[in-house]
């Protein structure tokens, strides 16, 4: 179907989806922690807009609550916490070397294609105008995972993890107008707790190994050195 046939808000949603995907790529590429966090917040903001739009498109107003939650958690709270940490631990400018950035980018692109290929059966099924965005959200999830894998700094890994959450939430929104309310709340609660725990862990790791480089957490292994 042609994008031209859609209403303007829907077109906006699709555009937002594209932007979200782009933000994931930016996250993947970004090496400076503070700007990493900013981009993450931006992604949260994009999702918030998308959710609000969906709420009005489909007239499902409970989505607004989830949107509010997103705004609070993904745009304000978590990035705020992370910034505080980064400042307190004084690792704002900490540039982290990631393996071959170009290669990872290409791999991420491949992931996008792959998730499109995977999402095809769903696409056939869906009646929603925004069905193609499922592929996008899956891509966001996978790229988030790739980010956790390719980053060594704990903070970056957390950001990757949270952007996975973003992808999931986005998927829920665009494919099914969000989950039942009780589940949404539960998930939000979990995310909140997780964020707090991450903060706790940063300090422990920092005090234990003097940095947030998780590759140095490698004492527990079966392979004798």
């Amino acid at each position: 179907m042609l994008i031209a046939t859609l209403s303007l808000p829907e077109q906006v949603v699709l555009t937002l989806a594209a932007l979200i995907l782009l933000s994931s790529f930016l996250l993947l590429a970004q090496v400076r922690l503070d700007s990493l966090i900013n981009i993450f917040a931006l992604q949260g903001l994009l999702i918030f807009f998308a959710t609000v739009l969906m709420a009005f498109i489909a007239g499902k107003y409970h989505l607004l609550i989830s949107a509010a939650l997103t705004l609070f958690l993904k745009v304000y709270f978590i990035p705020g916490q992370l910034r505080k940490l980064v400042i307190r631990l004084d690792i704002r400018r900490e540039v982290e070397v990631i393996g071959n950035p170009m290669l990872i980018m290409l791999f991420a692109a491949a992931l996008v294609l792959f998730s499109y290929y995977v999402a095809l059966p769903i696409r056939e099924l869906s009646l929603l105008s925004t069905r193609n965005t499922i592929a996008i959200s899956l891509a966001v999830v996978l790229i988030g995972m790739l980010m956790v894998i390719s980053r060594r700094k704990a903070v970056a890994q957390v950001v990757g993890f949270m952007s996975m959450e973003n992808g999931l939430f986005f998927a829920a929104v665009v494919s099914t107008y969000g989950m039942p309310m009780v589940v949404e709340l539960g998930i939000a609660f979990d995310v909140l707790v997780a964020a707090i725990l991450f903060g706790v862990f940063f300090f422990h790791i920092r005090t234990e190994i003097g940095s947030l480089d998780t590759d140095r957490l490698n004492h527990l292994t079966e392979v004798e050195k």
Partner: protein
Amino acid sequence: MAWAGGLRQNFPVNDEMAILIAESAVLTALLSAILPLFFLNRPHLQSLVAFFLLGGSGLAAAWGGGMALLLQTTGQVVLPIGLPWLHVSLCLDPLAGFFLFIVGFITFTVACYGSGYIREYIGGQLSIGTLTLFTGLFACGMFLVLLAADAFSFMLAWELMSLASYFLVVFQHHQPENRHAAFIYLLMAVVGGAFLFLAYGVLAGFSDGFSFAAMKAADLSPTWATIAFTFAFLGFGLKAGIVPLHVWLPLAHPVAPSHISAMMSGVMLKVAVYGFIRFVYDLLGNIIWQWGVVVLLVGSASAVLGVLYALMQHDLKRLLAYHSVENIGIIYIGLGLSMIFHATHHLEIAALALIAALYHCLNHAIFKSLLFLGAGAILQQSRQHDMETMGGLIKKMPVTATCFLIGCISISGLPPFNGFVSEWLIFQAALQGPILKSGILGAMIPVAAAMLALTGALAAACFVKVYGIVFLGRPRSAEISEAQDPSFGMRLSQMILAVCCLGFGIFPTWVVRAINGIPESLMGTGLSSVTDNGWLWLTPVSPQTASYGAPAVFFGILVSWLIVFVFLHPLRRDNRIRLGPAWDCGFGPLNSRMQYTATAFAMPLRRIFSFIWLIVEKVEPAGPGEAPRYLLKIDDRVWLMFYVPIGKIMLKLAERASRIQGGNLRVYLSYSFFTLLFLLWVIV
């Protein structure tokens, strides 16, 4: 069979009676395990109660088993335990009855022996409670294996037997080698159990349910039947200790307390044989002759290798353990013959061979237990298990020496004792080889017979060595010269067994007649002619073919001895016997170190068969002021050929597998990441 019918009229019983007695035996064994735990702090009372109950259960088992065997009854009961849709069901038929009799009887003698034997542990660091608990469970497990009538309860009892005996082997766990032995034992028991799982699984797959009755009904394609047979052969063979699956046996049997060694070597192996017979003859049914050939060959190999390895041992109990391998080999030869004849529809001869094998089971149980108990008595008295430190015990412990001598003669298969009869029967069966149409079989059976003959001769040689070194000559160490005959119970049990050795050797016809019921129930044919000529003559095929008049032989030996004795009398002027020193070739007095040692005794055979073992022999030249030292190390090739490589491969694999746990979080995550991608790619 008519005879049994006659018996039935004399003793009118209902079929259930035998199995009820057997059940009571199981329960008593269980009691003997548990009851002693209630007075842990009074070890004497503990052992008394335990062994009293154990003996009781043994007698009950022997009674029930003998009843089922003699009266040809088959009883069945179902216990309210087990799986919700499959309760544990027990069944006692003549075959089970026969083995139950063996197990029960030996358990009884062991019980007589045990209380005296374990006295040395009392006050030590080892708890009597452990010993009695697992002894009881061990006996209980063996009884249940024999009674089990469905695969589930069979496996349950089987593993229980293995586990309990493991705890008995590891009982004296302060010595590292005991722990090692126990570990190997349990490991191989587990592997064997796994094979049995598979074997029964195949049968269960083709039949509806686990009950033996259903499995009998199942009809398998020859291929599947052969697969099932292979698994069963390996599984039971592991427990029975056929070459090359025997390695646990010489490790485990010596380190257990001696009365337990007697039970393990004398009885537990028989339980394995029982399982094999039950599986092949009863559950599988239509036998394929190739199976028989395999069993025959493996049996021959076990017999010869077993005795050859035994010849090289100096640890008395380990030597006996290797002889168990040999005797199991002999039993398997008998079974193999029986299977071949069965498959070629010569049921008469098949019955003969089966009877021979069963008879040897009985005999081996008796004399091997006897020998182990004797060895235990020596061990208890002198704390010695190395033959090179023994000697001259016949003067110190006459009763043990006499019983042990009888055991030696029996196990060497010499007339007029029981070992000879069973081997004779096997020979008779083998000599019927030519009636087989197939030339290859006809050629193979004589070879087996030759192996059996060689085995017998070597066994005799080995026990000349054992008796000569241990009981004759001069004491080779101080500890030995302190030894005396053990307590009454220990003497009694040995004497009982010794008398049985003679009895079962002199009156074989009655035994054969009793066993005859088993082939009748298994393959529908018994030996008609075996006891035609009255109780005096054993004529397996026909009087013209072969006959053995055991009582007459015994009688003849006595008479001719008497005659010789009497006739020499007048030739004697005076019957004084002068004592003098042994001739020392004119050099100074002889001492015990001038005697032939066990090593020296076995040396010619070691040179002749040197290709069998892995021999490391070297002489350290004498340093200043010391004697030259002679070192000899003899290893089991099988161990190095099969087991060491397997262990290596497994550790290598483990090393490879351990790389998955490399310690790096991001690697871990990528596992899950790529797993996800892979699966998605697979299903879409």
